[in-house]
């Protein structure tokens, strides 16, 4: 490990490690590891069987290789699949029981875990390496019948909901990384909003990878019952390390009749250094099912971190009149690579989808929008609108747009617009002439470019995201 050297890299302010004793499963991907995870989490038998079924399936699946950013072969036998801070092996019952070092870490990250900060009005579930360490505001949410807890807790306390919905959007055999996740997932968040309930606050999860040589496989399941509403936000950071770490999460959303889920992500995993050494492989499967009529799922993502970002948050529009939205900002700098976009599968009648993608590429980075709009034959009178804009900074980076469009009925319409622009020297000069320095000018122009997406974020996070956008591009204009 060269973590010491990396500490000098000031660009990534979340790059610290926390020195905590941890419990790990032995290295390697095998039945024993899976049994170890299931056992330590005191899971019921059905859960272990489900995991083992996924593992059986995994053996015959091949790692996909169609994506643009290639990466060296991952040795799955050389990874740890479970790492938990020792002090959390008995899950703390309240915040006072959490290891102060973990609380300190979250404090450095700016996450208001302590309930004194309740004024912020955001309930947080924090996942440290493989386990969920704290969920705030639990009591207040419980009064409304809202369940917001770690998925491990949900498996024990709400098995009927978990069994009904887990894997119902991303099936066990979906694809390599999703199936891997199903076999070895360690923790994540679970949300259930009862019928006709508007969740009174933002729900938020913070993911932190701390241990080295550890894959993080979290699993999130959100169910919005009939007529309910929830807004959910996830944030992610990791220490700076010169190895590549795998993050393969699965997120499943289910919206029943007239329900709405708004899911926002601010992804700031460690992107690697200026030469492209280290960084997270962010290979994530996110999929939402608009299962009920008039339901709505909206994905907003601000992707600034990771060495490679490879994900397509998708909507399956099953219910009639259901709506799917995807708003994305993907920023790649230095040697970062992104292959990201969405899938909108229209099955129900009068379904609508909207895709707004803003890709920004600087340094030697490569940024790809890849998206599928598939309107099936029974999805009559459906509509899609797609807008993909790319912004290039410098002349060594790349931007690519690959839309796959299928329309199987004559009453539906699909619109696609795409632009590629280069950040303009004259615009920068104009801003400089008005007293703004180079960084301020870039930040202003880029935030203008991303505005339609930033507007979708919950207020508290929009400001943070704006700053993040500016920080990610620091030094990218000479």
């Amino acid at each position, binding site marked *: 490990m060269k973590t010491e050297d990396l500490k000098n890299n000031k660009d990534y302010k979340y790059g610290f490690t926390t020195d905590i004793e941890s419990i790990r499963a032995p290295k390697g991907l095998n039945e024993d590891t899976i049994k170890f995870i299931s056992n330590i989490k005191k899971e019921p038998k059905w859960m272990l069987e489900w995991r083992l079924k996924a593992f059986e399936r995994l053996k015959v699946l091949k790692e996909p290789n169609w994506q643009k950013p290639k990466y060296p072969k991952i040795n799955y036998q050389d990874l740890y699949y479970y790492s938990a801070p020792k002090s959390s092996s008995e899950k703390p019952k309240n915040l006072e029981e959490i290891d102060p070092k973990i609380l300190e870490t979250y404090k450095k990250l700016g996450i208001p875990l302590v309930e004194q900060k309740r004024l912020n009005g955001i309930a947080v579930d924090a996942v440290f390496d493989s386990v969920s360490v704290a969920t705030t505001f639990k009591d207040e949410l419980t009064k409304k019948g809202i369940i917001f807890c770690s998925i491990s807790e949900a498996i024990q306390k709400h098995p009927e909901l978990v069994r009904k919905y887990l894997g119902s959007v991303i099936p066990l055999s979906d694809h390599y990384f999703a199936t891997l996740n199903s076999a070895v997932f360690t923790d994540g968040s679970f949300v259930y909003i009862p019928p006709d309930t508007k969740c009174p606050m933002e729900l938020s999860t913070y993911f932190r990878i701390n241990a080295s040589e550890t894959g993080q496989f979290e699993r999130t399941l959100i169910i919005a019952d009939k007529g309910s509403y929830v807004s959910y936000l996830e944030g992610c950071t990791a220490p700076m390390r010169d190895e590549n770490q795998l993050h393969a999460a699965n997120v499943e959303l289910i919206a029943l009749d007239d329900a709405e889920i708004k899911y926002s992500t601010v992804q700031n995993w460690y992107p690697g250094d200026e030469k492209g050494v280290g960084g997270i492989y962010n290979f994530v499967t996110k999929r939402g099912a608009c299962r009920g009529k008039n339901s709505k799922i909206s994905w907003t993502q601000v992707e600034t971190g990771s060495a490679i970002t490879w994900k397509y948050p998708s909507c399956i529009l099953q219910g009639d009149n259901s709506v799917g939205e995807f708003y994305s900002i993907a920023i790649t700098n230095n040697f970062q690579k992104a292959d990201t976009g969405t899938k909108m599968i229209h099955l129900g009648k009068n379904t609508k989808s909207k895709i707004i993608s803003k890709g920004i590429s600087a340094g030697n980075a490569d940024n790809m929008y890849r998206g599928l709009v598939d309107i099936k034959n029974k999805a009559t009178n459906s509509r899609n609108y797609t807008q993909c804009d790319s912004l290039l900074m410098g002349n060594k980076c790349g931007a690519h747009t690959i839309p796959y469009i299928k329309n199987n009925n004559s009453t539906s319409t699909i619109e696609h617009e795409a632009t590629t622009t280069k950040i303009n020297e*004259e615009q920068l000069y104009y801003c400089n002439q008005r007293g703004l320095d180079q960084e301020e000018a870039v930040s202003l122009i880029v*935030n203008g470019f991303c505005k339609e997406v930033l507007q979708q974020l919950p207020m508290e996070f929009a400001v943070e995201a704006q700053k993040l956008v500016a920080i990610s591009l620091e030094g990218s204009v000479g």
Partner: protein
Amino acid sequence: MLKIKNLDATIDNKQILKGLNLDIKPGEVHAIMGPNGSGKSTLANVLSGKNGYETKGDIQFNGENLNELSTEERAQKGIFLAFQYPLEIPGVNTNIFLKTSLNAVRKAKGEKELDTLTFLKIIKEKASELGIDEKFLSRQLNVGFSGGEKKKNEILQMKLLEPKLSILDETDSGLDIDALRIVADGVNSFKNKDNAFLIITHYQRLLDYIKPDFIHVLSNGKIVKTGDADLGAQLEKTGYTSLN
């Protein structure tokens, strides 16, 4: 305020300015006229610190060597350029741009940055002086603005930032007579004994509204003739060729 001695400027291996001299004192209005390609816009670009020019010679601005300052430092110290072609910046609200700009300049001067409410009060007042509709301030910066609106926006920025030296690069081009008068009124109301103007123009007509103290004729990279306000009218009659 501004002292230029023997200024040469070269871009893409082509020498544009060749030993230009100019001296501007507080309270003065200087006009630079001259045929196309004589180096008028180059002079504006070099003074504001645009990249890409190689320069030789001495430019002093209030006792400081301009060559050592970046574009934004020059702006912060009070050099303002009203662009011939103001840039469009999509997605950026005009008000936000103006506020960011004003606060950057105030910060550099060691003044307190303005909060949004105070800023809005100031900007509304200045906009109404120029007959600019408030709605125009919440539009994206210069996007879809008419030529006249863009030029008025430049003058609004000038009045907001209160520079010491304002360089107007062909601000009159593309303006109808009403807009021309508004722009000229904007300049005249801002003019005082402590600030100065360098007005670059092809035509006499702007100078009918803003009376210059000096008119310089720029030809082939240097000033070939300097006169008072009457020189403009004379040039209008005889053209530049009469000076050769």
